[in-house]
């Protein structure tokens, strides 16, 4: 029961794009959801998973479903910043005069796939920083805007740590979500085998263009959020900080540094997209709870004890959400329930 035409269009576009992606990708509904939410919320998404689970394929399929330019950078240790953002090269015109001309790097695309982003050096990784945050890059003293919408999808492999450079916290914070690509279930594995070992290939249609994406991004920001939902978000973010007086025990014990305000923005923006995608005009508490792990797992820095104990940040986030919910909503409704 959708009242607003824009919302109706958003819902149909969202469902269409998801259907296109699911023509190729088997399972991984939560990862597909995170990527689509990131796209419409205006953020970037980091996909983490073992090799062969379809991270790159998912992003390529998504790019095919969008009528947008796409480029892929395979990050390697010898990749340089100029290889990403571009550089000034000497060009000779027909009259033999030489002049500098900016050669655009692969970052100048609507959708950028940064494959195995943790294999490049921190210097090269940081070349993405300005583009991800500001939507522009500065080369040779000139700031050049990136095409809009600009959407970075990065992948990294968590198990091959040798020869990698873990992303610094500042870079991680630029990603709206970090999605974990898990191993498929046996039914999904069977479907993957069937789809990938037969001669037929799925045809992906372009269902959304860049203009629509930008319109949807504006629409997302109109979705109202109730005060108690906003308060819950603030409490969740605060509860990730060990020095906060009401932080849960797990946070105090295992966390060195909690989530930044970008974590709260990610949760609210993501929740708005999720609400619209379900045909709802408001953000609910369940939206926040559903997206808390994706928005916060890469923003919580464990301390030595947490690293040594092998604590999963998802466990910390789960406890933090539970604690925040008890503090806010449930405490107020203690008799009413």
């Amino acid at each position, binding site marked *: *029961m959708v009242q*607003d035409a824009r*919302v109706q269009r958003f819902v149909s576009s969202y469902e269409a794009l998801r259907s296109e992606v699911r023509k190729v990708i088997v399972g991984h509904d939560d990862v597909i959801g995170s990527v689509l939410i990131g796209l419409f919320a205006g953020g970037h998404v980091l996909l983490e998973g073992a090799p062969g689970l379809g991270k790159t394929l998912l992003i390529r399929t998504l790019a095919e479903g969008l009528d947008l330019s796409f480029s892929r950078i395979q990050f390697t240790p010898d990749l340089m910043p100029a290889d990403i953002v571009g550089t000034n090269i000497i060009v000779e015109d027909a009259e033999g005069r030489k002049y500098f001309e900016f050669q655009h790097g692969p970052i100048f695309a609507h959708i950028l796939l940064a494959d195995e982003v943790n294999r490049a050096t921190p210097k090269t990784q940081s070349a993405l920083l300005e583009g991800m945050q500001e939507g522009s890059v500065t080369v040779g003293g000139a700031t050049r805007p990136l095409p809009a919408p600009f959407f970075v999808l990065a992948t990294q492999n968590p198990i091959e740590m040798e020869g990698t450079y873990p992303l610094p916290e500042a870079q991680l914070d630029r990603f709206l979500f970090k999605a974990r690509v898990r191993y498929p279930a046996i039914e999904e594995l069977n479907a993957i085998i069937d789809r990938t070992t037969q001669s037929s290939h799925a045809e992906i249609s372009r269902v959304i263009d860049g203009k629509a994406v930008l319109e949807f991004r504006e629409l997302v920001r109109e979705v109202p959020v109730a005060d108690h939902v906003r308060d819950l978000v603030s409490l969740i973010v605060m509860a990730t900080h060990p020095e906060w007086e009401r932080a849960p025990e797990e946070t105090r014990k295992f966390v060195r540094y909690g989530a930044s305000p970008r974590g709260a923005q990610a949760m609210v923006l993501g929740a708005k997209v999720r609400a619209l995608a379900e045909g*709802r005009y408001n953000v*609910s508490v369940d939206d926040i709870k559903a997206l808390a792990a994706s928005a916060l797992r890469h923003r919580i820095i464990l301390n030595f004890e947490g690293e040594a104990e092998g604590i999963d940040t998802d466990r910390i986030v789960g406890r933090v959400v539970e604690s925040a919910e008890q503090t806010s909503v449930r405490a*107020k409704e203690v008799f*009413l329930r």
Partner: protein
Amino acid sequence: MADPVALERLVRQVAGEVRLRRAEYYGLRGMFYGALAAVAFLALKAALGAAAPFLAVAAVLVGLAVGVGVGLGLATPRGDLARLADRACGLEDRVATALEWIGRPHRPPLVDALIQDAAERVERLRVQGLVGRRSPREARLLPVPILAALVLAVMPALTIPSGTLPGLSGAAEQQAEPERAQSTPVATEAQNKTEPVKPVGAIDERDIVRTSGTGRSEARDRPALFKDTALNGQRPDFNRFLQKGDDRLRLLDQTNKLPDLESDYTRTEYKTVARQANELATGRKPEQMSEDKLKDVLEQLRKMGEKSGAESEQLAEQGLRALREGQQEKALDKMNHALNAERQSDDNRKGALNLQGGRRGDTARQSPDGGESRQQAAVEQDEPGAAKGKLPGTGPGPQPKGDPTSRLNAQGVETSLEGDRKDGAKDSLDLNMYGSAASVPSRSQYVGAFEQYRKMMEDAIAREQVPRDYQTQVKEYFRALGER
């Protein structure tokens, strides 16, 4: 603009249900406490008379009324009610968000759509029983006071006990006695006239003659003296108790009868060395002893001898010389002699300073042969060679072969000892002991395990698995283990 009437109506309905549930909740609580008051009123039926049942019923009703009033009067914020409606109806925070944004001046277009969407959903709902019933803990306990009140209502009135405290002085007891006699219906008048109150413990023959509850004399019933009834009329004599406490305090002034704390809790230099020597010599042959430790003990004895001027200095010098010549047996013998000399010197010094303490002095005074008592005390303090006659071959004693050692567990008859003076330069005895072996745990397992771990230690150090800073400590640890 969308019409929020349905949302307001839903919130009002939820508010009404909340008030009702709260009235039930607090009403049950109030009824419980009212029932407790009713029990109290009925327990005081004797004092309150015919008004008690009415008061009890009134207490229950008042408690119920107050609870219901509190429940109805409690206010609930509108936002909480809206959230409750959202949760109860599965509206995913639509109502709460819509009602919150409805009054905001600058609202995006989506808010109108939200209000309309929420209102239409609410219209389709069948709103009933949104708020679940909650019963307080007192509701489960409510039958207890109700039943108690009913029982008390049908029972006769309870008697009220007097709440006076017993007096602490004999005068107060004597003063209180006539009052007690008056309030005790079973007491006889003869007892009131003739029996002054006696302190506990001062029972004489006359106490046997007591009157029972029926007023009949039972002079022939002597066991009745030990029954509780004989002491029933008496009170504890606190004055006597205090006097005994004063006597005990006076005893503390007699310091010569106090335990010898100096002797028990201080360690002289001699005792320290004697303990080391004892640990060194126990259970080992001379060639198994640590040469370094033996040398340490002899050095300490020599220094003590220097200070005290005792013969132990020369004996320790001789022992050290023997040790340098590789005669450990002789060195050990000299060490024992030096210890004896030092012990004698220590005893003399204590006697001169009058530091032997009351307990040891008392023991010596009470015993016909004070020397033996002192030897016994020395044995208790683990002084080697101190208890002559108590160990086999150590001098005169009640048994010609000496008392059995504790290790042999009092089987002295199975042990015999003979000695021959060795010819030549050695100034020592060859001792041969005959007897059945003692039942002690074998050390072979320990030795085997120790050798195994010692090799592992050497291997670990050779492979540099042990940090360099700790290698010396590890070696020292194993060396100390090996010497045992």
